[in-house]
């Protein structure tokens, strides 16, 4: 059933698929973290128009499937702009911006959990609001947010499965390619499923350990 695994060509395809998946997930989630932080700060400190814009952004990216957003980015956008852009870059951007919509929520609530007294304390020693946010609030917020963020990472990894439907060779794409040359369908998908399972479970476990180490003694967001 699984003899095809010994075929070096198939092994290569799987490896490349895994790499692309991990790449896009990682960069996407980091982009989401950065943009998400800005959105969170904007939603807390911004004026009305800023908050409205953020609300529209969040509603757009959280309101529809990532699948549709990827198609919009890869097919609609180039048509509108009359440009050819590398699909991988577009995918990375969409994943990042989509993730930012979700991460903004996590980051904002963890900031708000800390804000009140820690902002007072920061101001009282002469730090400006911005300095306090940077040196006091965010360091704490980022540690509290780790469990939610890990969740987001796993979610994003699963979402990358759509990439082969816009022509990118991720792990699912590798599976579909292998199936052109291999007659047995079930074993291929079983292997693919196991690889995802191992990767995601392993990553979660690792983040759990990191969270235990890095967490500030005494503060946790109640799950």
């Amino acid at each position, binding site marked *: 059933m699984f003899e095809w695994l010994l075929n070096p060509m198939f092994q290569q395809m799987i490896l490349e698929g895994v790499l692309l998946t991990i790449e896009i997930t990682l960069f996407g989630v980091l982009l989401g973290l950065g943009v998400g932080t800005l959105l969170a700060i904007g939603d807390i400190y911004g004026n009305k128009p800023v908050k409205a814009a953020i609300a529209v952004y969040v509603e757009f990216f959280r309101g529809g499937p990532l699948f549709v957003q990827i198609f919009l980015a890869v097919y609609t956008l180039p048509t509108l702009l009359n440009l050819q852009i590398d699909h991988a870059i577009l995918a990375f951007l969409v994943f990042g911006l989509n993730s930012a919509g979700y991460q903004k929520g996590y980051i904002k609530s963890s900031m708000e959990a800390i804000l009140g007294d820690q902002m007072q304390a920061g101001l009282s*020693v*002469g730090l400006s609001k911005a300095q306090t946010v940077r040196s006091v609030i965010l360091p704490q917020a980022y540690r509290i947010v780790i469990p939610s963020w890990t969740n987001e990472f796993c979610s994003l990894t699963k979402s990358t499965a759509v990439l082969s439907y816009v022509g990118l060779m991720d792990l699912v794409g590798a599976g579909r390619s292998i199936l052109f040359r291999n007659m047995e369908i079930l074993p291929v998908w079983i292997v693919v499923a196991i690889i995802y399972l191992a990767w995601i479970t392993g990553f979660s476990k690792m983040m759990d350990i990191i969270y235990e180490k890095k967490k500030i003694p005494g503060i946790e967001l109640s799950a």
Partner: protein
Amino acid sequence: MGKQKKEEDRVVRKMAEYVMEAKHVYKSYGKPKVKKGEISLDTKLVVEAVRDVSLQIRKGDIKLVFGPSGSGKSTLLRCLAMLDIPDKGQIYLGDEELTKSGVDLNKARARIGFVFQHIYLFRHLTALGNVELALRKVLKLPKEEARKRALDALTEVKVSDCVSKYPSQMSGGQAQRVGIARALARNPDIILLDEPTSALDPELTGEVIDTLRDLAKEGTTMLIVSHEMPFAREVAEEMIFYDEGRILETGPPSQFFNAPNTDRAKKFMDRIIKRTTRE
């Protein structure tokens, strides 16, 4: 015209003598209605925490503000530190008017030390980190010097054994003393303390009070909101009775403990003394 100028000069000179001054400060919480340049307040929904309060603090003064809870003492203190912005009136730090627009409040707050009732240490930093942070980021001191000054401050409040501990690993008394060190480390012009012992277990208030006593001996300028009466009697030079947003009576501790002038102060002192003697 000339007489007025001389009067102004005298006032200006006098003002520079004060470390801090509040002039006719008003602060309330609620829904204000702005009426023709004057702020009038919807009395139903509003708490008038500070009503036409003026006070002056000279270098080396140790003043204690006390009174019934909810009277607005904390708000007054926070207005002085510009952590709350007064609705009306002026706050002066030395020569500088903090309530003027365009003032760099951060720089001003760097010259004021503030100690909170609920301590508010930076939870993600150790005791050392807590004290160092402002030294590095606000006073922009180099790492070595910041560290040294922080350690000195911590030693002065006698918590050097907590240097690498996080706030959640300290007792309330230790944490509050770190809070005092954090306020001290910048060598501020004045230290404002908002009920520093109220949130602590009774056994732990002693350590904090000892620290304050030491500071008083060294001549630190302090304005304390507190109802620790024994401490007040021993250390405060002037006590200020504050009720319902106003200063009702001021005077040395002996005045309050023996024969207060106002009825409200008398009633308050009676209740307090009865409570402490019963313990």
